């Protein structure tokens, strides 16, 4: 973007703008585009979800406004804007007003590091992944503000639940990502995507594999377990069923949003759906190769790249379109799964949610980190690090050994953990009684 703006300002119009002006303008342009993309995603996702879940329930879903109900979200948005804005008399007015903003803003920031296609990352940060999750944790503050400022018991309960849930599910999410970061050795989202070229097995680890853009992390045991754990944690972070406890309408009305109306409520709604989109997107990025897919790398290689400055710009566009298509397809597929889960399951209780996160997911992801270490050891380390014994196996052999080992470890961990967890859940009545009442059983 910088290059384009620079070209237009200084070459075409010969304005002689300073570097920082160019940067400012180019960043503002990118930001504007992203700020437009986010609400559009939200509008589309609400429509998509309502139609999908209706189909799962043998219904039709909204189909009145526009062709096939396309403009239903627009109509809803208009309704939101025109609704009366109510501030409870006892509320803390400023905090009540600021809370939705604090919730929405971080979700917009998070778009900054999302790779839409080859060379189409708004900002390629070295620590993009960390940035993504650091920023997402800010919205917890907003929820807390909303819950406290509303001066309503349901809101406060909802906010407490939301924040407790977000904070505790951040740990398994980070631990499952740690396994991936250990393998790639980079926190940059661009690097992680680049790493997932190749074919089912990881291209950058094994030489001589064609780069078809299918070397996604989900295809190896470490990545798969990390994916499963991360997706569950993402459901909890995005407050999706079965973890939609903070806004459990059958228990605490609408949680922290109870006292909000009109567009302030709309902002919470926006934040939530944009966050869901982002969580689906980041799942696609980290475990399913984002824009990676057959054809993208080949097309991109023909375009203008740092390695190949003489390429044809149209190939960049083609690669970008194809990459964005793959990326959005994967993202919406994950959202489909979210909706599917919402269509099938009841929700957990608060204490069960905490139990599941702390007593099951975290140990499992810890085991996965261990597996990742084995994977890295077998695939990347040499005699210096003490893995000389593995050298005679050759690249493919080392990969095979790592695959089998980690698979065995992960399956064993899953079974053992599930059994232990299942046993603890099923405490017999007598034990429970003896435990709680302090009686000789």
């Amino acid at each position, binding site marked *: 973007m910088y290059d384009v703006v620079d070209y237009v300002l200084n070459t075409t119009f010969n304005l002689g703008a300073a570097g920082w002006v160019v940067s400012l303008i180019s960043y503002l342009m990118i930001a504007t585009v992203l700020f437009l993309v986010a609400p559009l995603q939200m509008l589309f996702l609400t429509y998509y979800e309502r139609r999908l879940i209706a189909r799962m329930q043998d219904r039709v879903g909204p189909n009145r406004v526009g062709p096939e109900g396309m403009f239903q979200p627009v109509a809803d948005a208009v309704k939101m804007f025109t609704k009366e804005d109510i501030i409870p008399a006892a509320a803390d007015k400023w905090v009540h007003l600021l809370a939705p903003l604090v919730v929405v803003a971080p979700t917009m920031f998070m778009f900054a590091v999302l790779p839409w296609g080859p060379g189409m990352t708004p900002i390629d940060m070295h620590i993009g992944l960390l940035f993504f999750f650091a920023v997402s944790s800010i919205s*917890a503050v907003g929820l807390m503000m909303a819950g406290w400022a509303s001066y309503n018991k349901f809101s406060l309960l909802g906010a407490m639940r939301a924040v407790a849930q977000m904070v505790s599910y951040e740990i398994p999410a980070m631990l499952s990502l740690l396994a991936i970061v250990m393998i790639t050795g980079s926190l940059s989202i661009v690097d992680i995507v680049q790493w997932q070229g190749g074919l089912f097995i990881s291209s950058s680890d094994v030489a001589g594999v064609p780069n078809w853009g299918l070397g996604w992390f989900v295809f190896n045991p470490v990545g798969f377990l990390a994916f499963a754990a991360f997706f569950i944690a993402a459901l909890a972070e995005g407050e999706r069923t079965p973890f939609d406890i903070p806004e459990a309408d059958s228990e605490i009305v609408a949680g922290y949003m109870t006292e909000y109306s009109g567009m302030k409520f709309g902002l919470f709604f926006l934040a939530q759906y944009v966050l869901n989109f982002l969580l689906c997107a980041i799942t696609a990025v980290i475990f399913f190769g984002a824009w990676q897919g057959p054809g993208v790398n080949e097309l991109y290689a023909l375009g203008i790249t740092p390695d190949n400055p003489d390429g044809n710009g149209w190939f960049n566009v083609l690669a970008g379109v194809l990459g964005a298509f793959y990326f959005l397809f994967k993202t919406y597929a994950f959202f489909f799964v979210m909706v599917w889960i919402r269509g099938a399951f009841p929700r957990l209780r608060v204490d069960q949610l905490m139990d599941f996160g702390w007593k099951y997911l975290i140990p499992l992801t810890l085991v996965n980190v261990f597996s990742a270490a084995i994977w890295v050891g077998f695939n990347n380390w040499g005699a210096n690090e003490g893995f000389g014994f593995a050298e005679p196996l050759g690249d493919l052999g080392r990969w095979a050994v790592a695959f089998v080992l980690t698979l065995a470890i992960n399956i064993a961990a899953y079974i053992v953990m599930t059994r232990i967890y299942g046993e603890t859940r099923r405490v017999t009545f007598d034990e429970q009684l003896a435990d709680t009442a302090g*009686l000789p059983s």
Partner: protein
Amino acid sequence: MELLIQIIFFLLAALILGAGVMVVAVRNIIHSALWLIGSFFGVGALYLLLEAEFLAVVQVLVYVGAVSILILFAIMLTRDVSGQGERLLFQRWWLALLVAITLFAAVITPTLLAQSWNVVPPTGPIEPGQPTGIAGALELGRGFVHEFLLHFEIAGVLLLVALIGAIVIAFEERNRRRKVLTLAEEHELRKRREQTSDANASESALSAPGHPISQSE
């Protein structure tokens, strides 16, 4: 570029200082915690301006995302947050100010004196040995497991001890807490009591089932 950075720096500095003042100046503790979060955020942005991306992100993750949440949680569990009717300043406030300034000076003076202020910003290509790529994370990691391994371990152990302590306190608290028996538990309890003490059997059988029993130690 320089100008832009300077403008941003002054804005951020104003935010940090202003928010810091507000933390101590407002009555409502929740508001003061929220100002604190704003201050943390400004510091994070300042790190970003210094191109210390990792540090900035960690600042946001740890301080804004976790520490401030803990503070908010703790505050919300207290009774009176409005701070109405409490005085912000007490009589010998100047003494407190003096102590604070002295301590701050004691910390800052050696730093100021020891620092050579004529650092030339690195120009030209980055040398191979220079940190690249991961912006400090790699060095930090290396530092933790090489030179500062002992410190790191000690800090870890300390945190572990704190964790265990917290758990112990929480467990004690749980035991002390009133246990609300469910209907089935209560019923089972009554039945067992009947079995154990024959003398009182008929008496407790007559008592109404809906009567709540609270068990405390």
